[in-house]
């Protein structure tokens, strides 16, 4: 028996922080993305401000579109191709950022160096009024709190039984997800993450706009396999400028010899890592260069000078 996968109510930050995958069971096993905060997602429901979509398809016969969904905690890429014609049409429909509810399947791309990029392959995209967007966000934040509460209980009482959970009306799947999250992300600051939801709560109250003010690397998550991120200073230091130019040099070199003129992201990461620029630091540089408009990533995993 294969039940339909529920759409986990998730914030962009939680999704950005999710780097662990798990295969399901059965004949055609689904893939699940595990978050540090007790979500085990195959399908998600998100709400926020959806940017106008850009075409990232290689040619007309393989239409593929991407937009960014920003909520008060972060942003993720939302994609749709010709296999999701309805979602693709909706994705392409807007020319300005608009409040939107998105349902889709999560997709984790992992580079050679272990850096993960999460995107959502849209199944349903719906432009909504602001009140509906806030209501959906309220739902998302409430269920996120519910999962965080459950995680705290599991931490205090590791023997918490499925029977107890079931009696309280909490899905047993959540308990399993909470245990797995704790196992896979042992060093995550969950208190900080809870606090970081305050912008989302303010948005529910109508006190702020639909998306976050400043994009940032999630601070509440530490990936144990890579070195901890360095807090990005307000202005880049001389050292960081050096790293930026190293990154750009390598990008140019890769692009020069590639057939399509794009630099493969994995290739660039692997080259800069041999110069000592690794993991989240390399990613931070990439993000900053993208934000500053120096480089762009028109196709997932493919970079070029803007």
């Amino acid at each position, binding site marked *: *028996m*294969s*039940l*339909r*996968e*529920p*759409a*986990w*109510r998730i914030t962009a930050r939680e999704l950005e922080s999710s780097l662990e995958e798990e295969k399901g069971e059965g004949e055609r096993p689904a893939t699940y993305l595990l978050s540090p905060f007790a979500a085990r997602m195959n399908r998600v*429901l998100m709400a926020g401000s959806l940017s106008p979509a850009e075409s990232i398809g290689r040619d007309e016969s393989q239409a593929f579109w991407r937009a960014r969904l920003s909520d008060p905690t972060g942003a993720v890429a939302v994609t749709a191709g010709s296999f999701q014609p*309805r979602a693709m049409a909706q994705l392409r429909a807007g020319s300005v950022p608009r409040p939107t*509810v998105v*349902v889709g399947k999560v997709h984790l791309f992992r580079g050679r160096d272990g850096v993960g990029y999460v995107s959502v392959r849209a*199944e*349903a995209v*719906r432009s*909504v009024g602001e*009140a*509906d967007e*806030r*209501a*959906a966000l*309220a*739902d998302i*934040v*409430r*269920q996120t*709190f519910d999962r965080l*509460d459950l995680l705290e209980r599991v931490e205090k009482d590791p023997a918490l039984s499925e029977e107890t959970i*079931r009696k309280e*009306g*909490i*899905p*047993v*799947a*959540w308990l399993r997800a909470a245990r797995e999250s704790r196992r896979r992300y042992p060093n995550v600051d969950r*208190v*900080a993450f*809870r*606090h970081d*939801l*305050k912008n989302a*709560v*303010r948005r*529910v*109250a*109508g006190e702020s706009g639909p998306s976050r003010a400043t994009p940032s690397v999630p601070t509440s998550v530490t990936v144990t396999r890579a070195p901890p991120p360095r807090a990005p200073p307000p202005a880049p230091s001389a050292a960081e400028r050096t790293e930026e130019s190293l990154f750009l040099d390598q990008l140019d070199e890769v692009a020069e010899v590639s057939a399509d003129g794009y630099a493969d992201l994995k290739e660039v990461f692997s080259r800069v890592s041999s110069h000592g620029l690794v993991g989240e630091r390399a990613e931070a540089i990439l993000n900053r260069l993208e934000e500053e408009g120096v480089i762009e990533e028109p196709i997932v995993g493919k970079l070029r000078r803007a």
Partner: protein
Amino acid sequence: MSADPAPSTPVETRLRDLRATTSSVEFVARVVTCERREITRKSDGGRRPLLSGLLSDGTATVRFTWWDPPREGIERGVVLRAVGAEVREFRGRPEVTFTWKTRVAPASPAELPRVDAEEIPFRTVRDLKASDEGFRVEVRVVRIAPKSVTVGEERRVVHEGLVADRTGTIALSAWSDFGLKAGEAVRIAGAYVRSFRGRCSIVLDERSVVVRVEGNDLPDPAELLRSPPRSIAEVEDEGGGEAVAVEGVVVGLLPPSGLVYRCPTCHRSVRSGICRIHGQVEGQADLRARIVLDDGTGAVTVNANRADTERLWGVTLEGAQARLRNQPDPTLLEEELLESLLGRRLRVRGLGTKDEFGVTLTPESIDPVEIDLDAAAEELAARLGDRS
């Protein structure tokens, strides 16, 4: 047999005590249902008559097979004494076979084993399973209504409804009129549980006994029909239920949704003008929506009928047909219906049945839900916690 026989009928076995055995048994029982058939022998093509159906003696109901039965005189309600019947087990349940070695004779209802009501165990609704019998329950009648049905050639009235105790709710069909009324509390004995399409119901016939009771610890029927929504994960866990209430967001539509055509006789949907049962028919237009409702813990399919679809969509069947005349592409209509529903928060109450694809709700009510954003924001702010 291990059973201790009742003092008045020392040589007989109660059906409840039947076990698969090589030695033949004797019992007295009433024919509950029977059906006459003929089996064609493979060896010589000869035909052999066969009567099969259900027997009950008040302690249990078993299937019976009677080879070469009398030509007439065996029908529903007749009480029989069988000596030398064979007992076999099929799918874990005993069945009896009457062969040439079995002596079967009419008997008086007075010869049926006396069943002391006190020895029948009490059960809760939650514990009832398909094909259970020989139990007592105390339940509140939530609702009940007579319905005329055709059984074979016969017109009969069945009283259908819903009963509940503190542990759950279950459908009820009474084939005799016990004068049941909504709201009253009753003790039922001599009923059995039948399952149809994954939905269990308590079935009462003329042998069942209904006694009115105080039922102080039984739930208030109005409360049952107003109960707050539960998580879809819970509903999936329990395999649906009689009076399920859930709340979620519309995340999709399943085909066929929108304008559909139905067979005028059986109301099944018609494809290419062909009904699965009645062949070529003139399909009648209807509106429906098979809504996928998701609350983050699970998803159910809600089968909305024409009235609900019209109300949620804001387009009537006539309106939809008029649109189809101007824009002869039915997929556009479905698109429009989806557009009007997607992302909407609905509270749905109704009958939930589970199959291999999950739980399907046949709604009694579908209501859009408005969220009080200020209250939600306040509640959520309280849960932020302090940064330590």
